[in-house]
């Protein structure tokens, strides 16, 4: 009897335990919903005016002493609260807001989760294996603030694409190491997303079997020492995931740029080497993130979603009125009167920054910014950026300021020597959008980024590298060899010996809705490479494209040969600049040259010539209903009219009169004015370059490690330590996150 009774009790206990566990399951439980969720918050938000927030109230969070350098690292994605705005502001808020702003962030290794996540510090030549775990809650607080639009082509874990209701399921995420030379299996392809409950996109892959809500990636770190960053890259939701905080730095070190105070380059190190992740954000009166999604929460610049009948919540670009650096609004940094090295990334959704230093008290010009490195590594010599006050740029005319589009990085040195007691503001004067936006008002809070306070005592003689001396950073003893030049920045031409195998001529366009654009397009082609017939069969791939072999259902037009060199010419037919990023490779800017695109001048434009080539037909578009609303539908386009999403007007693989692929009319008959060589900060290796409107922007691209000599690789020869021709493939895209989320991204895969 005892035995029976005992077993009965044991069974009851186990049953109770199992019942509780079952009900804790976020996918099937119904008893503990309030237990699983954070404290309930409402979605209505009242915007907090950025200009009302005290600036320079809290110190800059830095990563020195908490960078993670292990060969194998776990990186989790979490939701948590963090003080982003001044501490005093939270103290006055009710619970739960007084505990900070809800953000998503990476927990890198043993470091606490934070926005941005702790920096990964990799060693050149030693692989880093990262296990990314999507541990975001199934019912995250932020999902109620960041409305997920399901009408754009996105990850769609619950197969609800096209629904006009906000997504309420598990958040898909995938991580891309921006600028990394790595296998596409570890590149964070947009379709490689995975959710907290283990759903996968069709491009998902993992180095070794792992938990369903995780993926294991490996980075060989074969490239030169530089400043990379990793961030979310899930299809159609990147803008929200990065906005929420999923971003962090990834530094590659080598035997020269060691990060130690005894580094052979004598670059400032230790407490004098500081990462700056610059991002704009908007907040509500509860100190929570505000992402414009409706007339109730309009955008500061674009207004509420302009075409709600097409995309109810998506906006063309997000621009916030609060500048955050390392997850803090307008922080300050106390410095010694000596040289500092700053590793800067513009990690904003859409905002460009043109920066200089100004004395906080007198507004007089501050010390110059010395740029010593770009996206892909050190420059041969430092470039002086005096940071002069200039009229707003409307074209790629040279600037004396540090000019960064989203995702561009700069490695700079500021010399505070002799400035004890002074304060300097890092200023910004880039209009939004760039360059078509109006100049920033004198009172615009986004004119300042952060403040440097030269208040610390000099801790010892400063014997670090002095950029003012102009000494080379490469090519000497204990230095990296000089940059392998694919393009000559002094002439704006290809470097001697560089023979591109193919030239591609590609246009950047936008699908224009009644109010504002409803999508951006690369070569007028959507993500899938299918001519859009609003869901009506048959699907017609863009002529000249090939279907991917990974089962993602996408058609690729850019299929370069590994080891080959090509010239990609981007003609931007839109009003604004687009930072174009190509995965896998570092490349170089050859030059820019103007092309008329403005129809108001009366002069022949390339845009008109290009549009005239379209044959007409019935394809997807928007229709204006009798009540004035707009909705998707089939539209009969007459011949000679641009058809959004049709692809180029001609077969992609048929060379045009310039001998270029891409399916577009030749650019050369429309070229105007001089060839403009790269600006001072663009003369090195780049993985993201600003493509200015009304200009052909020419890149020289090569599918080989960046250190390989000009003639050190032949087409068909793979010099990477991995096979770049397999896997889900790579992408190239506009790095305005709101654009890349809505069709302004194309897949590509090198072939043999």
């Amino acid at each position, binding site marked *: *009897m*005892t*035995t029976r*009774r*005992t077993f009965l*009790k*044991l069974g009851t*206990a*186990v049953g*109770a*335990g*199992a019942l*509780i*566990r*079952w009900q*804790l*399951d*976020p*996918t*099937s439980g119904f008893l*503990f919903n309030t*237990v*699983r969720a*954070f404290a309930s918050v409402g979605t209505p938000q009242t915007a907090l005016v950025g200009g009302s927030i005290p600036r320079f109230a809290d110190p800059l969070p830095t990563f020195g002493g908490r960078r993670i350098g292990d060969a*194998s690292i*776990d990186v*989790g*994605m*979490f*939701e*948590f609260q963090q003080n982003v705005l001044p501490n005093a502001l939270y103290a006055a808020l009710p619970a739960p807001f007084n505990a900070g702003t809800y953000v998503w962030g990476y*927990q890198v290794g043993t470091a*606490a*989760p934070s926005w941005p996540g702790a920096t990964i510090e990799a060693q050149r030549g030693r692989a880093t294996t990262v*296990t990314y*775990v999507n*541990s*975001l*809650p*199934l019912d995250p607080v932020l999902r109620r603030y960041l409305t997920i639009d399901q009408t754009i082509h996105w990850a769609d874990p619950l197969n609800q694409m096209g629904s006009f209701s906000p997504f309420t399921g*598990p958040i898909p995420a995938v991580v891309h190491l921006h600028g990394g030379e790595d296998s596409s299996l570890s590149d964070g392809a947009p379709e490689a997303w995975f*959710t*907290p*409950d*283990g759903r996968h996109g069709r491009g998902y892959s*993992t180095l*070794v*079997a*792992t*938990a*369903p*809500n*995780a993926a*294991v990636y490996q980075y060989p770190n074969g490239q030169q020492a530089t400043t990379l960053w990793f961030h979310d890259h899930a299809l159609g939701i990147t803008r929200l995931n990065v906005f929420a905080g999923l971003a962090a730095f990834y530094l590659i070190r080598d035997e020269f740029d060691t990060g130690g105070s005894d580094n052979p380059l004598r670059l400032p190190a230790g407490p004098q080497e500081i990462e700056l992740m610059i991002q704009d954000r908007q907040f509500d009166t509860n100190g929570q993130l505000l992402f414009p999604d409706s007339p109730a929460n309009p955008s500061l610049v674009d207004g509420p979603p302009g075409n709600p009948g097409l995309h109810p919540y998506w906006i063309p670009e997000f621009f916030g009125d609060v500048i955050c650096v390392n997850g803090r609004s307008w922080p300050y940094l106390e410095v010694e009167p000596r040289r500092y090295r700053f590793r800067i990334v513009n990690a904003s959704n859409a905002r460009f920054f043109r920066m200089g230093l100004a004395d906080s008290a007198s507004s007089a010009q501050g010390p110059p910014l010395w740029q010593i490195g770009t996206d892909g590594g050190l420059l041969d010599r430092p470039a002086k950026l005096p940071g002069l006050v200039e009229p707003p740029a409307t074209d790629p005319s040279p600037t004396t300021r540090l000019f960064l589009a989203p995702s561009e990085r700069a490695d700079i040195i500021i010399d505070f020597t002799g400035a004890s007691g002074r304060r300097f503001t890092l200023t910004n004067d880039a209009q939004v959008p760039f360059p078509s936006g109006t100049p920033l008002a004198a009172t615009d809070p986004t004119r300042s980024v952060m403040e440097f306070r030269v208040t610390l005592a000099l801790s010892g003689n400063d014997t670090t590298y002095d950029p003012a001396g102009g000494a080379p950073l490469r090519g000497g003893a204990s230095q990296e060899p000089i940059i392998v030049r694919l393009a000559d920045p002094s002439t704006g031409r290809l470097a001697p010996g560089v023979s591109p195998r193919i030239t591609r001529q590609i246009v950047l366009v936008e699908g224009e809705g009644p109010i504002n654009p409803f999508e951006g397009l690369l070569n007028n082609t959507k993500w899938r490479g299918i001519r859009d017939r609003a869901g009506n069969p048959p699907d017609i791939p863009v002529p000249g494209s090939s279907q991917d072999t990974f089962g993602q259902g996408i058609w690729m037009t850019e299929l370069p040969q590994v080891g080959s060199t090509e010239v990609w010419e981007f003609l931007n037919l839109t009003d604004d600049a687009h930072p174009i990023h190509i995965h896998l490779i570092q490349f170089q800017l050859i030059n820019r040259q103007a092309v008329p695109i403005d129809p108001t001048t009366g002069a022949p434009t390339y845009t008109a010539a290009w549009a005239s080539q379209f044959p007409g037909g019935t394809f997807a578009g928007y229709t204006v209903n009798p009540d004035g609303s707009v909705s998707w539908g089939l539209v009969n386009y007459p011949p000679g009219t641009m058809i959004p999403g049709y692809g180029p007007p001609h077969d992609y693989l048929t060379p045009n009169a310039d001998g270029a692929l891409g399916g577009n009319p030749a650019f050369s008959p429309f070229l105007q004015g001089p060839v403009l060589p790269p600006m001072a900060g663009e003369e090195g290796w780049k993985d993201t370059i600003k493509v200015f409107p009304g200009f052909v922007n020419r890149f020289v691209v090569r599918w080989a490690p960046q250190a390989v000599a000009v003639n050190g690789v032949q087409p068909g020869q793979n010099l990477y330590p991995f096979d770049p021709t397999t896997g889900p493939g790579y992408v190239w895209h506009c790095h305005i996150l709101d654009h890349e989320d809505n069709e302004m991204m194309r897949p590509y895969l090198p072939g043999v």
Partner: protein
Amino acid sequence: MRFGPCNPSGTRASTRLAPSNGDRTLRLALVLALPTIALEQFLHTDRWTLAALPLYQALHWFSDSLLALPLAAAGVWAGQRIATRLGLGDSNPLDVVGRACLIALLFALLLVPGAALHEAADRLTHVHAGSATHSHVPLPRRSTGGPRSLARFAGHALSDAFTGQAAGLPLTILALLWGGHGGPLRGTAATKTLEA
């Protein structure tokens, strides 16, 4: 149906006036399982998750403890038997400590396969998805794919289990001392009388 003698207050007493061996085993198992699992969970859950979802964590701990109860009961039962056979008494403090150590050791060993079951339960119920939670939710290096990773997993589980005893063992000792007498599992006159 049998009724026990009335107690002084006149209410009916039952055969449960004194706990049976089974009841004692269960109570001891609870005393062992609850703190052991609590400590394991505390050590494996980052403080941000603990702070963000305290009730979720409490329910998770309670459910895990109940699910581990059979293992703890088996540890108590086997530990008591072995201790008796080794001649350990139930009144001498040193003997009690030895008895508790035996129980804790067996429970720790049983928690190794228990960890695999726990991981399966986590997978089945998407614990990793419900919130940012346990760091010991399956990670590839702890997968049971090959002998080496299996050994690593077992080692990790054993380490966890022993760590957990830092909470379980002292309470088990206290329970044995306070409750008197882990006692023989069978054959005492008292229990035989009560169960007759």
